[in-house]
């Protein structure tokens, strides 16, 4: 009987030792991987050879309550980042500030408007050559090599988000190739995203202290943007078209 008791005690001790070893092992492994995971979480960057993943859906949440009337820091930042300026009818404007006034109660709002990075983009549907395309991570782009400049996408876009380059360009940002005779629009600063950054407009808005533009992964339930989209009422502009846009608004 006592033998039996001893055996049981031994087995218990051995099992506890194994558990301890496994526990320590797991902790060590966790410690080794953690910085990598943390860095990945912080940066979202990916290697150049790695393709964009559909597990991610980049998007923005714009709080018009925080967006100041008269401030156009996001617009200037976009121009500086992507290499354009000017407000003529023929000038490119990837982002613009719209001032709204409710005709029923007189309330006014201010908000930035840009490509809404639709899940079902009309510009991609109508493009004859396939130059307008949606990347796996939800960013809608124009392939400058096969855009023939027919402007059908501009006719199709419900947000007037696209611009046509009407004249020769100089002093371009090498990260953002643009060209006369092609159509272009907000790229969500894809070159920054691929390096782990966020769009210039969102940075500029934070720098100005407004924090009206929140950028993030709509597919990640733990991201701040997903949490806010889940917890508060947000709006899709022209929701009637059912395009499931990547840019959401709050406060309108």
């Amino acid at each position, binding site marked *: 009987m006592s033998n039996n008791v001893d055996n049981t005690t031994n087995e218990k001790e051995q099992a506890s030792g194994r558990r301890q070893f496994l526990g320590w092992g797991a902790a060590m492994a966790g410690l080794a991987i953690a910085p990598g995971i943390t860095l990945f979480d912080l940066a979202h960057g990916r290697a150049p050879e790695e393709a964009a993943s559909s597990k991610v859906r980049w998007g923005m949440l714009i709080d018009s309550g925080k967006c100041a009337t008269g401030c156009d820091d996001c*617009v200037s930042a976009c121009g500086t980042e992507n290499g354009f300026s000017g*407000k*003529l*009818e*023929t*000038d*490119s*404007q990837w982002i*613009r*500030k*719209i*001032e*709204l*006034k*409710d*005709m*029923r109660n007189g309330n006014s*709002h201010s908000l930035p*408007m840009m490509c809404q990075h639709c899940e079902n983009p*009309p510009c*991609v*549907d*109508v*493009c*004859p*050559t*396939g*130059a307008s395309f949606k990347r796996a991570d939800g960013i809608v782009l124009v392939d400058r090599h*096969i*855009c*023939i*400049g*027919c*402007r*059908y996408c*501009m*006719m*199709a*876009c*419900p*947000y*007037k988000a*696209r*611009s*046509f*380059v*009407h*004249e*020769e360009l100089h002093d371009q940002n090498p990260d953002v190739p643009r060209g*006369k*005779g*092609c*159509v272009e629009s907000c790229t969500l600063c894809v070159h920054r995203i691929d390096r782990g950054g966020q769009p210039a407009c969102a940075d500029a808005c934070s720098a100005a202290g407004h924090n009206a533009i929140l950028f993030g992964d709509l597919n990640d339930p733990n991201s701040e943007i997903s949490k806010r989209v889940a917890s508060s009422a947000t709006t899709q*502009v*022209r929701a009637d*078209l059912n395009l499931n846009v990547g840019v959401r608004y709050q406060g*309108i």
Partner: protein
Amino acid sequence: MNFEAFNKIEERAFYALVAALGLVVLFGLGAAHYMETHGHIVTGMNNQIVWGLPHVFALFLIVAASGVLNVASIGSVFGKTIYKARAPLSGLLAIAMLAGGLTVLMLDLGRADRLIVAMTHFNFKSVFALNVILYTGFFAIVATYLWTMMERKMYGYSKYVGFAAFIWRLALTTATGSIFGFLVARQGFGSALLAPMFIIMSFSYGLAVFIVVQSFMYAWVGMKLDPAILRRMKNLLATFVGAVFYFTIVYHMTNMYFAKQWAFERFILLEGGVFTSLFWIGQILIGTFIPLAILLHPTLGKKSRAVFLSALLIILGAFAQLYVLIIGSQAFPLDLFPGMQQSSSFFDGAIHAYHPSLPEFLLGMGGIGIALLLTTVAVRVLRFIPQDDFRQISKEMLTD
């Protein structure tokens, strides 16, 4: 005047006509080159009005190209003799006008040099890409159709190829109308009605062009069109003009029924300035009421000059209609936030202005020049002038 002297004068006149048309084409190509090197900054188009005057010309030519083939279809498919005699000219005009229209469309591209890209990269969800295939096929089918009509050995196939061309043409114009019909964003477009409306517009524009060209050719050689044939053709033209008018009413009535479209309708019909004037004076008065009054008038309608004049007015009205439809619909701002007053540096909420420039006009005229030049040369080298067999016609008239 003896025959030889007439021949000499006629030859000179022919070369003068070819030279004049060649000059128009040259000016068009020059304008395209100017636009290509400087960019669209030299045109009246901008980021608000993205399709302008070149598209009005191109659309007219493409829509009329499909419609002008109607004359051949009535002959081959529906077996009417007087139209059969006109089938070759109708096929020729269809090819020539499509060539003119597509040239304008292509030369207006931001990157016209990338035509090869457009021919090798296809997004089959795009109705534009579908149109590229339909246009190319149209050339092939109508060219084959002309061959079966002009080569004695191929006569037997004419009816079948004619039928294929008829179906193809309906598909083509449906797709042309759908370029606008599939645009969900803009209030003037986004309606399935545009597809059948474009088909009936093509019937009207095409027949008007045919009558103008035929009258010109008959006057050139000093022939006179038989009054019975004239009566048939002008009655058909009046029917088509009436049908376009009917579709126009239905289009606007539908819009007026939807509260969200009221502002747009008010713009086009009442407050749109040049667009309102072009609608009421251009499309409705000059392009519809006056030609209908002439064509249906008991005495005027029998005069070939009056019929010629109404066909010209219908063409003018067609330009007005396309201008209002294509440019007017872009001039009205997109309504992103219904019920809100909108303003921005990108002209949100504002009526967009469009001032067509000379290069755009010259490019458009160049397209018409190409169509007419191709027709003039082809008519000279091959037998395209309608020759009527009156024994057959009188038999047909009795049975109708």
